[in-house]
């Protein structure tokens, strides 16, 4: 499939057109190839958990404030 009609019916050179995309920009490449998982250091896990606890605590405060406001 060298020359094919585009969505407006105009003939396009598909290989030349697709060359303007980097190989990992293709939809299939994005679907099939994923970045490998990295392992977290204990310090990183600690910071992640600390921020998670911070968020849950602060959400609790927001809910408390909304409840107080409703009263």
């Amino acid at each position: 499939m060298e020359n094919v009609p585009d969505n407006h019916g105009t003939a396009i050179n598909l290989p030349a057109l697709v060359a303007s995309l980097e190989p990992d920009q293709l939809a299939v490449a994005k679907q099939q190839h994923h970045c490998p998982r990295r392992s977290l250091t204990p310090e990183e896990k600690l910071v992640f958990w600390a921020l998670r606890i911070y968020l849950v605590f602060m959400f609790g405060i927001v809910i408390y404030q909304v409840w107080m406001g409703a009263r």
Partner: protein
Amino acid sequence: MSPPIPPTSPSAGTLIHPATAVDVVITHEDIDRAHDRDRVWQTRAQRGLWSRARLLWLLIGPGILVMLGENDGPSMLSYAATGARYGIGFFLPFVALTFLVACVVQEMTVRLGAATHRGHAELIFDRFGPFWGWFSMADLMIGNFLTLVTEFIAIRAGLGFFGIPPSIAVLAAWLVLFAALMAHRYWTWERVTLAAAMFNLIFVPVALLSHPHWHAVASALVTWKPLPGGLTQETVLILLANIGATVTPWMLFFQQSAIADKGLTTHDIRLGRVDTMLGAALAAVAALATIIATAPLFAHGMSTANFEAAGFAQALQPFVGRWGATLFALGMFEAGMVAAITISTSSAYAFGEVARRPHSLNLPFQQGKSFYLVLILEAAAAAGLVLIPGIPLVYIVLVVNVIAVLAMPPALLFLYMLVNDREIMGDLVSPLWANILALGVVVVLIAAGVLFGVSVISPHALSFFGGR
């Protein structure tokens, strides 16, 4: 491994990719994106000022959209409440500073999206695993849905000024959002939404109609006056609402995904930064104009505690005239409308990335069914909630901005770690100065959150921070 996407478009199929010499499946989405990239490469090959300007025109979009999109209903209402309650002395420079913070944060998403061609949610899941990925998604989805509700509140209130019933207003807005998707083409969607987003500057003529004292405006920007009334529970809420009006988690997800969908590469990072700064400048002008426009309410000591958007427009009428009030109400509608489009799109991108479903605005409906359904149904649910009578609208919009600030530090930590990950970023990892700025932003946001917590649990403790 997932099965390849079926080439259902008449012009899609397989070919040998010139760069890799490997037989690859080409989809409709690829061809649309390739057309956009082809125009960029052809323009880049040309010389001259006109070609430079055209290249900028081709590459702008995600940055301006994310910044003007964040000038949304709750943000504009926060700015209006700020001007009306506190005037311009402290908050003009403060809000300008928050847009600089937004630039620092969003610049990282430009590099990340251009270097990896992947969305933010996908990278978090891939690099940190589903455990942390789902936490991040929950933060995003809860925040996005609450914010979407407030966008429809702004739409309802803005059109309410013209006597349009709430049900008609939210239905019309939902239909506009639906219509913007009909092109099934990222480029068309981006240009239509950009054109709509430019109406955010409608707040500038409102500010001009309020006949501000320009000397006082210039003085406020240069001297940074103290916070009127000192640090109180109310001022802490307004401070956080103003921070949340410029930096929120959905912005990180949206801009990175939009950059990947648009097809930006590492060659485009410089203009991607220009796009972001241009967006921040335009959004800052609109935000400052809103504060200036409502400052006469502060000067005349009017109580604005229970104003909705339409209430602000009506209250402003004696100072800016009928035309000014009309523009203000239209601006509220526009702010909610554009943000409803961009925020629901950020949810749909994130869902597709995590569920490994096709996610692009270049997809025909049949191929991107789940992507479009998430977008449309989330907006429909938010629109429906707004029609419940008796909701305390102003309070909700301020609280939503506060939640955005609270959810930012964990989101920023993921971004910070990804943008410093040499395995995916290569030489594009953040330089030291950018890391110092990013960590500074995290510290400031956590400090603001803690201050809010103190103001709620023990308001008297604010005296330790110089308040009363």
